[in-house]
């Protein structure tokens, strides 16, 4: 998926809650690429496409778990008050 596609997809999934602007999108993509979590290639439409790598999938699991913990904790904290 290319940068604009990713941005639009996020917008779509989150029902418009998260609109990722290019100023945040590209730095994030490039950092993940440098970390080796995603790999990039130039597609046929003269656009740069990104794909999740094996390391990226692992990292995603880690991050998802962590996020799950955090959101659970925050929800608990909010409920308690």
């Amino acid at each position, binding site marked *: 998926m*290319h*940068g*604009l596609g990713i941005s639009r997809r996020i917008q779509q999934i989150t029902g418009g809650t998260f609109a990722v*602007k*290019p*100023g945040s999108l*590209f*730095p*994030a993509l*490039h*950092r993940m*690429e*440098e*970390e*080796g979590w995603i790999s990039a290639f130039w597609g046929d*439409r*003269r*656009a*740069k496409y990104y794909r999740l790598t094996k*390391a990226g999938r692992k990292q995603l699991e880690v991050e998802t778990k962590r996020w799950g913990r955090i959101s659970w904790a925050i929800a608990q904290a909010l409920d308690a008050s």
Partner: protein
Amino acid sequence: MPLLVKVRSFLRNFFFSRRVETDLDQEVQSHLEMLIEENIRAGMPLKEAQRAARIELGSIEQVKEQVREQRIGNWLHSVLSDCRFALRQLRKSPAFTTVAILTLTLGIGANTAIFSVVNGVLIRPLPYPESDRLVELMRGQKSGNDETVEASKFLFWRQQSRVFEAMAAFDIFGTGFNLASGGQPEHVTGMRVSPDFFRVLGVRPAIGRDFTAEEGAPGGVNVSVISNNLWKQQFGGDTSVTGKSISLNGEAYTVVGVMPGSFESRPSADVWVPLRPVFNPQNDGGPLFIVLGRLKPGATLKAAQSDMKRVGEQFRTDFPDFMGKDETVTVVDYQEHMVGDVRRALLILLGAVGFVLLVACANVANLLLSRATGRSREMAVRVALGAGRSRLVRQLLTESTMLALVGSGLGLLFSKWCLLGLLQMAPGSLPQFSTTHIDQHVLGFTLGLAFLTAVVFGLAPALQMSGTELNDSLQEGGARTAGSVRHTRLRDVLVVMEISVSLALLVGATLLIRTYANLREINPGVDPRNVLTVKLSLSGSKFETTSATWEFLRKVVDRTESLPAVDAAAFVTVLPLEKGPDQPFQIEGLRDSEYRDAQFRAITPGYFRAVGTPLLQGRYFTQADNAQSPGVVIINEVLARQYFRGRSPIGEHLTVMGGAVTGTVAIIGVAGDIHEDGLDNPPPPTLFVPAAQLVDPFTRLMNKVVAASFVVRAKAAPMSIVADVQRELLACDGTVAAFNFRPMESVLAGSIVRQRLNMLLLGTFAAMALMLSAVGLYGVISYAVTLRTHEVGIRMALGADQGDVLGLIVKQGMRVIVIGVAVGVGLALLSTRLISSMIYGVRPTDPATLGSASLGLVVVAFLATYIPARRATKVDPMVALRYE
């Protein structure tokens, strides 16, 4: 694995930065195109679609910059690009760059040179293993420590003390030897040392061995240890040298060891032979030796002091007549003693040269500030393009650091050259000075200095520049009147600082110059004009008795005096101003019978005529004052005044303790005072006795411990008779090597060489600071003139004449100068107290010095103001009004 990916990314970012950049460029571009397409599909017209797309994307450059900042290795990239940019900027203004770098070269170079000396003399340990365990033992007197010790005390201390691994004594004066080498005798430096000498220093001979206890006891055989130099020179570096012999003073000495080439003793020597001290408190020749000790591992200086206190009291109990009432034994750290009063002077010089660097930094900061004004628009543009404040400060600091690094590189070269000059100015005036060089400590110091200075002179301008309000700068549009007041204020403060620091240095330098002048004006007590001095080592079997020595001295004096170019010639044990050994004495019939020390000189009859010292009362010695006639002595005026208070001392008697002459001797004359202890010390009480009347053991002892000095008063320039004197000496004895031919003038100059060095150094620093602050002031006023060109034009158009304009500008300069001088006088009053121990004959707060230094500074500063101010008056009103 993740690390590998990161490394690959880093390398790619670093080496293929162009490809990475194009990639980013294309990606953003394609993103934009896709946005436009999307908008068109949504039914927007082309123009509208493009506009909406651009709005959503935001600033393309800012997006790219944000991506770049995320990159691995970004910091390195930006530092490098900062450096490249800095270099480009510096190249663009060569005049600024040259002046800034030259200023820093001077400042950092001078600092590096002085620090090298501080490092070499104060910081670097003595070149002996575990040198922190080395101590020197001295006799503590009421007036301070006296490092000369009697043989008997040394032997007693060595036997009774418990904290030392080894203790050794050596000749204080190191008379040297006459080495028979080929046809002509040659003088070699040498010392007599007790057997443990090398063990105390912790250095073993490279070949052979050092002395055994038997060799250091009375009756031992003649053996020697030689230096690496002498070994190469005499034996061509033959490794089987031990057992061979060298001829010293006409006697064969078996070589038992060769010291390594790195070994240096102080004073330096080429030959060491055993010292054989004898325990005999009544008659051991007096204090003639220096005593060193190596503490046992773990023993502290404190422990040594208390142990030696006990040993000292023991000596006093056992031999109450031979230790003064107030005398103690003191133990001091050897290095600390070697460095002694040099420490203070060096640290003061380091402080002074630090001030010079401060002035240099202020100057460069000033230059940077004037550039800052010219660059405020550039900075504003860069802020507008998305550069952060910290990014700008970093860029400017990079520029400063580049300047400082180049300056310190050149400064390092400059300091090498300075060091050479220093070594030439004052050879051997400081311990370990001759081996001072630039080592890793010095390099580290210089590098640290470079970064420190970069921050000091770069930070203020950088903060100021990056702090400019964006709109102000852009709107100011390079206008040179409004908005720059703040810059001018800071620059004025910097110049005030430069002026005040320069004034403090100038006052210090003036004090030292007056000190030197005062010392030069002191009457040394001798008339040095046309006097030649030379030294002879008379030790050896030929000169064991007074009569043999006397015979030789008389023959040399007679033959030399018969030379047509010579007025008078005489021998003396120690030259004027070169403090010699003291001898205790007691005046007959004086109620206070406590014994006192006096400088002691054995002379031949013509001595006072040869050195030009007046006889105030009584008579000179004659040839008739010999071994058979009653003992006589000539005292100096200080001694006469101290003990005879108005009475004539002629005909009174005194006893010289320590057994130099037998019985009591009659005072037959009073001579004028000679500054035997250096020009900056008052003349000490002094005793003169005829060399012919010394007792044999004392003559033998003196011949061993001090080289005899021969003084010749010539009719013309003293060095013109060297060859003649040399010939007469060799004619009298072909084995005695004369050395150290010097005019008496150099002997005098030698005694104030340190003051001269201090004066020259501080004078140079003050001159540098003065020059730098004049340049700084010049810069500030020129800048003010440029700022006010417009104003001046208006004033002149409205009728102001050149004088008014000149006054206007000069007044601005004078304000800075006056404040600077006021602060400087305060600073000088505070700081000159530090050098009160280095000055002579002038008070640190001397008003005349303060006045003349201030006046000199004001004159220079005024010129630095006046020259650019004149330029303002040459302004053509029409041109000035059109300016901008």
